[in-house]
């Protein structure tokens, strides 16, 4: 299609204001109802002290934020979130890379491998969480029995590190397939002539992977890292809820889970709102990062 046609298309659509507005309306309504209004409410709530029913409300300025920053529990939660997200990120990408590279080399039954690897994505996070919690439950879980048989004093109910390992495993397992699809696509996009040339020159698969595959996957990897951070920050609620409920002693109480417990269990709406405002700021930084460094490098012309 040439440029002239494009302009014609544009003019035809923007002749009258009514139609484009009408077409945009559903999307805008959804944004308004599910994004702008709740965000605004969270923002105002963050500066208020109110009883849950909203009958007694006091303006407290930055008190909620001040209390959060002064709270050791909150700082721990931030720390836990960082550790969790980094570990989850590393594990997910590493596993997805291995799987993607391996299935790129598989010749027979490729489709079957892919389907099996993609399966966890179809499982609801809560179900996945309960599954992992059960498998590694020290009293009844078969995998925990194996670990204990091997002399590991495994107890995620008491030991914070064990609990962290467990939620990282569960969260990564659930997310590997997402990274896998992108990496597989990335590998497919690498011209096979490059790989073949290297093979002819005598480079073994591992060498080919590290010297050709990995560098060419760079932009994909960066994109995935950002997406994994977003996942780790905002979407692991269900898994944490099913596996550890943030425990023991707050060892897996990531920020997004703390927002939930403080708001919906403890009914401390002011603090919960302040926390979600901080999380919103995180999300904003992530989005900016992605726009700045990823979108710029992506070329939509092939």
């Amino acid at each position, binding site marked *: 299609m040439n440029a002239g046609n494009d302009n014609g298309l544009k003019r035809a659509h923007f002749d009258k204001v009514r139609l484009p507005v009408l077409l945009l309306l559903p999307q805008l309504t959804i944004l308004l109802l599910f994004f702008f209004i709740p965000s605004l409410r969270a923002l105002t709530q963050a500066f208020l*002290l*109110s*009883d*849950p*029913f*909203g*009958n*007694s409300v*006091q303006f407290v300025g930055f008190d909620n934020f001040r209390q959060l920053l002064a709270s050791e*529990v909150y700082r721990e939660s931030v720390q836990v979130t960082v550790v969790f997200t980094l570990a989850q990120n590393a594990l997910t990408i590493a596993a997805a890379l291995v799987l993607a590279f391996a299935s790129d080399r598989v010749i027979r039954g490729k489709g079957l491998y892919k389907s099996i690897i993609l399966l966890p994505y179809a499982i609801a996070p809560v179900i996945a969480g*309960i599954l992992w*919690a*059960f*498998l590694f*439950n*020290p*009293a*009844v*879980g078969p995998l925990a029995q194996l670990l204990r048989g091997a002399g590991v004093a495994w*107890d*995620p*109910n*008491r*030991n*914070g590190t064990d609990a962290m390992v467990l939620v990282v495993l569960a969260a990564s397992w659930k997310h590997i397939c997402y990274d896998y699809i992108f990496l597989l696509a990335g590998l497919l996009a690498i011209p096979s002539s490059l790989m073949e040339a290297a093979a002819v020159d005598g480079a073994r698969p591992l060498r080919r992977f590290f010297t050709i595959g990995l560098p060419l996957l760079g932009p994909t990897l960066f994109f995935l890292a950002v997406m994994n951070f977003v996942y780790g920050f905002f979407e692991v609620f269900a898994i944490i809820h*099913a*596996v*550890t*409920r943030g*425990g*023991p*002693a*707050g*060892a897996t109480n990531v920020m997004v889970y703390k927002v939930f*417990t*403080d708001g*919906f*269990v*403890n*009914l*401390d709406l002011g603090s919960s709102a302040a926390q979600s405002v901080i999380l919103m700021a995180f999300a904003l930084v992530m989005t900016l990062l992605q726009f700045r460094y990823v979108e710029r490098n992506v070329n939509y012309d092939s």
Partner: protein
Amino acid sequence: MNILRRRLAFTAIAAALVAGTQAARAEPVQVQWWHAMSGTLGERVDELVKKFNASQQKYVVVATYKGNYDDVINGTIAAYRAKRAPQMVQIYERGFMTMMLSDAVLPVQDFMTQRHYQIDWKDFVGPVAGFYSYKGKLQAMPFNSSSPILWYNKTHFEKAGFAKPAQTWGELEKQLYTIKQKGISACGTVLPGDYHWSYLENYSAINDLPYATKANGYKGLDTEFVYNKTMVVQQVGRMKKWLDDGVMEIAGQGANPEQLFASGRCSTLLASTAAHGNIERLAKIDWSATYLPWEQGKTPKNSTIGGASIWVLKGSKPAEYEATAAFLDFLAKPDTQVWWHKVTGYVPLTDKAYQIAKMEGYYKDHPTREIAILQLGRGTPTENSLGFHFGNFTQTMFAQREEVDAVFAGKKQPQAAMDSAVQRGNEVLRQFEKLNKGKY
């Protein structure tokens, strides 16, 4: 004349008949009741509502399960803010202060009096009525009340050479260690999911230890926790020791404490009397139950209640309130109470209901069903055993649990953890006080 009269009478009768059928045909008034009873208990609630609906034609109660207690209070808050609140909600006992001072509810005793229902409020058993009362009047309708008791595996105790669990913590500890050492069971006891209730709160009440100032919150919002200066600290240390020695086990996610007890893996369990329904159905072991233990040298006081009550929310039409009142009146009836007590394991809420069950000889066949009642009514309540009236109670309990868990994980010493729990809890109490100044 006669004919005229007859005709008049006839028309009058006809008119009355028409009016009568119209009244009968009029749509019954529908009211909503949100609750948190799932599983077996949920089935019982449905039966209860069915009984009421069948007992008359004017009203229909619709009971809706809204998730666990946290979900129900959250759903209620959201609905209230959107002005679509149900007429009745079941809220856990920890939400008492939050609900009472919310300006969103109608105190139930006044509510019933205004609608001319004669309910003998004095007949409600002391610990229950006392908990839900403010200035001598009931604020919420007691519904499902329970107390923790000590469940035990009879076979395990007999094998170890004990007739039954000992009465004091020290003696019980020795028994549990013996059972473990003899290899009779994998664990002496399993940590209950709500251990703060049995191991810390009721522990304080039964041993007459102060939990907070101002009669545990009954006498003012300026109450402060003090349990870091009592034997509670030692109790937390004891629990940690049991865990370290493998005498106590944590069920953890994916398993539940009741299962570990009912399957015969663990020999004892401190759990609500309301577990009767489940354990009677689940357990393949030979079980029994007894009072919660107390400390050597103490005279045990009453335990305190848990469970939930029904609150009437503001904002409904008069006809809907008539229906609500009729339902609450139905709940308070001794027959309803006795039935509910028998099918669930919750304690009967009125003396009359208790007497009926007793006269029927119910406790001869089901002795463990009476333990919670006797334990709740034991001795004269003191300021320490009356119960706990804290604002934002759930939040303070959460902080406490986090600190106790830190002890279990070996991250903190019991004293340091309890100091920190008290400090965190007091901050939460001050916030509630600030918000509700002058209301209590």
